[in-house]
């Protein structure tokens, strides 16, 4: 039975047993133990509704989109464009022209870097990011700086892993053309005051790109209420397949940007002398897109809204509080990232035990966590650590999972004791 309640009723509390039944992989055993999956920040698991939607599309509706008058091509186009409308509603964009399907957050950021920033930035222009960014929100800007002579500036963290607003504001200046920052830090769980930061950027005439990969699965995101110019996220962190993601951009900005990749579907006419480009959003979708991925993404959005974003956020916050309290009780553990406002991501180190060893021992107990630098080396450098272990929670995690994590950590302490 699916956990989706009937339309219009959104329970304040998740029926967690029903939610767990919606994710078949959670019944897996690992090394003879029940799986405790605490790595949703790296990639979440798929809901049955998503798996079924993809299967149904591949079984009954697949052909290429936007190319042909036969029945299946029209069915596929309807499914793909229907998914775009579903995404628009999920993040409350004004128009489907503002929804570009991409491979994931990384591609969304690279698209803006290469199509918005590269053609217009000059030496002396500034791009502002923060100290907690994922490599995907650092490297594309470094590349643009190399290409244009623009300068990359970084708003520094404090010891709690927050970006103090005053520091962010200090880094803004008359030459700031673009700010790019995470809505939620993947390495630390810090939630940034996005709306306020965007307002500050706009006050300096800069546009704002938000990396929403870690935010969209966990709370309601309204791109217009936030005032975001660009907002990008990945399907596979929100219970949908890999290889599909979304770049939202304000229509006015996208319309003024040149295409990034050339190919089929992004053109109106092609001759050897001159090509005219297609309208939005097709202008940015060269080649056959990930149609089944988009269908799966739409199904994941139906599923999440069925559960209720508020109920999900409340459930995950309870787990975060419980896990934080449990880990704080173990003197050999240190929590990295103690921001006042956090999502359900818990990074930590154990005294005398490298994160990699911790990950192996936890795995032997069936507990899956991420270990390493979490694609955020500058965060690790800031805290003077080579690596941390990271437990991250999704809608399907339980208090029992927290219990299994703490017992596994005790086991690790024994092995290295």
């Amino acid at each position, binding site marked *: 039975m699916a956990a989706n309640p009937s339309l219009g009723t959104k329970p304040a509390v998740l029926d967690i047993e029903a939610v767990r039944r919606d994710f078949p992989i959670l019944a897996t055993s690992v090394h*003879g133990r029940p799986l405790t999956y605490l790595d949703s920040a790296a990639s979440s698991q798929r809901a049955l509704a998503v798996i079924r939607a993809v299967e149904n599309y591949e079984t009954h509706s697949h052909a290429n989109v936007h190319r042909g008058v036969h029945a299946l091509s029209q069915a596929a186009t309807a499914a793909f464009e229907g998914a775009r409308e579903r995404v628009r509603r999920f993040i409350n964009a004004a128009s489907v022209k503002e929804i570009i399907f991409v491979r994931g957050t990384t591609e969304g950021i690279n698209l803006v870097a290469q199509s918005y920033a590269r053609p217009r930035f000059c030496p002396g222009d500034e791009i502002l990011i923060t100290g907690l960014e994922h490599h995907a929100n650092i490297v594309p800007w470094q590349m643009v700086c190399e290409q244009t002579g623009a300068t990359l500036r970084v708003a520094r963290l404090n010891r709690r892993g927050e970006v103090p607003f005053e520091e962010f504001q200090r880094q803004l200046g008359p030459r700031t053309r673009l700010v790019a920052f995470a809505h939620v830090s993947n390495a630390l769980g810090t939630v940034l005051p996005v709306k306020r930061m965007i307002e500050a950027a706009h006050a300096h005439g800069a546009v704002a790109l938000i990396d929403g990969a870690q935010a969209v699965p966990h709370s309601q995101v309204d791109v217009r209420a936030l005032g975001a110019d660009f907002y990008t996220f990945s399907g596979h962190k929100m219970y949908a397949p890999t290889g599909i993601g979304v770049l939202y951009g304000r229509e006015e900005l996208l319309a003024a940007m040149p295409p990034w990749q050339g190919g089929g579907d992004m053109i109106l006419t092609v001759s050897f002398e001159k090509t005219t480009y297609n309208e939005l959003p097709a202008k940015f979708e060269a080649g056959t897109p990930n149609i089944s991925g988009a269908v799966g993404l739409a199904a994941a959005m139906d599923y999440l809204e069925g559960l209720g974003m508020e109920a999900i956020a409340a459930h995950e916050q309870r787990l975060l509080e419980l896990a934080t309290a449990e880990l704080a009780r173990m003197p050999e553990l240190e929590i990295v990232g103690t921001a006042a406002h956090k999502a359900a991501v818990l990074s930590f180190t154990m005294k005398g035990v*490298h994160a*990699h060893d911790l990950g*192996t021992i936890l795995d032997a107990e069936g507990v899956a966590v991420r270990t390493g630098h979490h694609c955020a080396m500058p965060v690790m450098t800031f805290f003077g650590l*080579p690596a941390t272990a990271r437990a991250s929670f999704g809608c399907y995690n339980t208090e029992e999972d927290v219990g299994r994590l703490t017992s596994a950590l005790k086991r690790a302490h024994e092995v*290295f004791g």
Partner: protein
Amino acid sequence: MDLKELYRDVILDHNRHPRNFGPLEGASHHAEGNNPLCGDRLLLTLRLKGDRIEDIRFEGRGCAISTASASLMTEAVKGKDRASVRQLFERMHALLTQPDGAPDPALGKLAALSGVREFPARVKCASLCWHTLNAALVSSPAAVSTE
């Protein structure tokens, strides 16, 4: 899955008390090894006399497997010539990647790392120091510091 096979007492001991750890005075060759998966860095410095490793030390921070592997390696290769080091490298490579079979007796204490092959994600941790040693041996000799 037996954690005791991976974290044998020898490994835990070398992790807690790494041998030949720290900078080497008057090094002739060095190389840095990086494991981008975990962010581990290893700096290997050695002094060659003719064809022979007269002294070798390592620095850096890593997991128990990579620290113990580097520590055991420095003990094993000190005093050996390039050809013998090459042989040991081949034997280590076989130990870490071949599915089973008894460890080559010529490996001595290095055989303690045989449990790693059951943990494919960790093989790189154990082999990082050996690849770094290869890089150091082909690096151009550093000017000997007189300070």
